[in-house]
């Protein structure tokens, strides 16, 4: 069902049950956020997307990522009160992740360029003093990939994200979903030779598959094998162990040869 909600005095169409943050992102209305990912359930941890919601004459501050669109709902994204709280939250973020350029840029949009709070700078931080513990990497790893290689460790101000016991993880697929969803580019991942090194995750190393055709390392080996094994239409044997690029070339060459009436037979 399509309904209408009002955001900052303008009316917008929304699907029933859709979150206000989702509407805002689609309509390019700026609401800062760090822990939101469309493919995951609302989490409500970063508290930046707090907006004022007015319903039946009653207004309350709530997070846009957890607020569901409903007919007649009125939203104000930047009341003086919200801006005041958001500025303090940005000060907290600047102290927590002093090396994050993303946080600096987001805070600067609210005129916050300094923090009154003690900045934590740890030269040995595997996440480069850029992590804000939004939890997206943990949730992508557990809820989307089903790998469970990383999770929160400790609680309260001592919380960090890493592998169990800070040991290299045998469960890490090397898929890089964590790197992909991280809003502050905090996770250090690099392919070195035949291995993908997850430096942030206790130096976890994941072997990469080597293309039998061009010799390039193209994907984490176990991940590539498990995906190929799950395909509805299996790959042909000749293409199963080559990189996607070489596979494309191989198929194209086969097509051309077949049209010329020569080459390897298609059907077996």
């Amino acid at each position, binding site marked *: 069902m399509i309904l209408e909600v009002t955001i900052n005095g303008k009316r917008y169409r929304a699907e029933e049950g859709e979150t206000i943050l989702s509407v805002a992102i689609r309509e390019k209305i700026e609401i800062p956020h760090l822990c939101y990912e469309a493919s995951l359930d*609302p*989490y*409500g*941890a*970063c*508290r930046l997307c*707090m907006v004022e919601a007015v319903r039946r004459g009653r207004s309350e*501050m709530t*997070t846009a990522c*957890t607020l569901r669109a409903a007919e007649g709902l009125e939203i104000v994204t930047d009341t003086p*009160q919200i801006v*005041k*709280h958001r500025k*303090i*939250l940005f000060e*907290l*973020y600047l*102290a*927590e992740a002093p090396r994050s350029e993303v946080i600096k840029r987001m805070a600067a949009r609210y005129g916050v360029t300094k923090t*009154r*709070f*003690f900045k934590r700078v740890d030269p040995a931080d595997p996440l480069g003093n850029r992590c*804000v*513990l939004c*939890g997206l990497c943990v949730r992508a790893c557990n809820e989307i990939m089903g790998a469970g290689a990383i999770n*929160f460790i*400790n*609680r*309260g*101000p*001592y*919380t960090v994200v890493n592998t169990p016991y800070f040991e290299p993880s045998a469960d890490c697929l090397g898929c890089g979903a964590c790197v992909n969803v991280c809003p502050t580019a905090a996770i250090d991942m690099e392919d070195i030779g035949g291995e993908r090194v997850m430096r942030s995750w206790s130096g976890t190393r994941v072997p990469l598959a080597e293309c039998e055709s061009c010799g390039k390392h193209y994907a984490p080996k176990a991940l590539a094998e498990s995906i190929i094994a799950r395909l509805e239409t299996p790959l042909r044997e000749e293409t199963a162990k080559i990189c996607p690029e070489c596979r494309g070339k191989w198929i194209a060459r086969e097509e051309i040869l077949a049209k010329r009436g020569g080459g390897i037979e298609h059907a077996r």
Partner: protein
Amino acid sequence: MKIRTAADLEAKKQAGLRKLQPGKPRIAVGLATCGKAVGGAKVYERLHEIIGTDNPEIDLSLVGCIGYCCEEPLVNITLPGKPLVILQKVTADDAEEIVRAVEEGGVPEGKALCRIPSWDHVTGCTLTYGEGFERNIPAYRDVPFFSHQKKVVLRNAGLINPEDIDEYIAVGGYAAAQKALTGMTPDAIIEEVERSGLRGRGGAGFPTGLKWRITRDAKTDKKYIICNADEGDPGAYMNRNEMESDPHMLIEGMIIGAYAMGAAEGLIYIRAEYPLAIRRLGIAIGQAREYGLLGEEVFGTGFSFDIGIATGAGAFVCGESTALVASIEGRAGRPRPRPPRLTDIGGGLFGYPTDLNNVETWCNVPVIISNGSGWYARIGAKGNSGTKVFSLVGKVDRVGLVEVPLGTSLNTIVFEVGNGGAGGKKVKAVQTGGPSGGCIPVRLFDTPVDYESLNRVGSIMGSGGLVVMDEDTDMVDIARYFINFATTESCGKCVPCREGLKHTLLLLNKILAKKATRKDLDTLADLSETIAATSLCGLGQTAPNPVLTTLAYFREEYDALVGR
């Protein structure tokens, strides 16, 4: 033997009465955790050495705690036809004197706290003990610590053996459950609870009957009820005593609730730091099963219900409803945004609609059913019916558990019941509601203790901790203590709580080290407001209260610590 009929229950009642009034002297030692902590177990052991087991002349038993914790160890003596006499501050060395006096038909009057000629167990049973000792032992109702109290939830605490179901049945126990299951419809029970005006005793004060109705109306094949026994506020131990002194009262409340809401399974989520309460609940559940009060076809009806125990792992935040459910499910105890609420389909335990009530809320249920909502609603104040148990601790003269009607003033509790500051010191403030509450200055002590009035002065009811502070208490240090507690107990999920409380603590350390400026005080106030306004769950939303209230009421103590 399973209890099926009223006659079965009556037979157990008579058996229980023979234990409480055995026709020979009975000595019972107060053995809740508070009594054990000051040597109660040693007193029991020594008495046991002297009296032995199955002594034809004297019975030795144990009871929970009547609440006068600062006078413990307490020992009850019942001589046939004489009042029940409570002895105070008993040591193992007193054991011989006690036994000798009892053998001679008396009590060591010098050690007596009070005498109880008869006791109203509220649920339709008044036990008459007898007359005597009027000259040298004050009556219970004349002891100032007791005279302002009204025992409803603690009606049996310290007077019956919590490890013996017969004694609970003797004083009217399980009669309410039988009345409910065999004579009332679920709707009638919920209406009765609604009319009683009972509100959640965990601190938020949500109407219990309404919560039950929402759970009952949820259309699913399965529902859960849970008892929140994750009591963890510093200085608060009401629930612990309720479970250690009268565990069957909780079980009976849950049976009635389960029948009203249509739940077949109940859980008690209890913190692992309460080993004695866990043990006594385990014993009580076992006895209730043996008597057919839990399990299949309770009271011979078609209703089946059982209770399990789930223990916590030391996290304060697991008292928050969504974190509590996560903890039971085997996940980390981190709150999630609501809705969905626990009572919603998809929101409760394993996704089933779940009713969660605090220990004391459940404990109020049997008496509402047995005495009626009208009786119950007349206790307390308008919109705040019933009693509340408080643990009166800190720098107060008489430390203990206090049960008073809601609406009783802080003055009455702290000065009449508690006798003011310990050692004659001047009382300065009282902290209500634990780390989530606020510090209320003595000039506001005419505030009635009810949910709304406490909110108005910047504090909360909370679960019932009352920590008294005197003239020597440094209020900034008190704020730091509670912020330190909240910081280490934050789950770490949302930023204002995790980071904000950490910086609040750093600021308070700086202020106490006399290195802060006026600007730091402004920062402290701003930060506290943001934490309260933007945190995800109740822990963060209320954690700044100790700072906000001390800033409001004791600003001069902060000012004295900062430079210009």
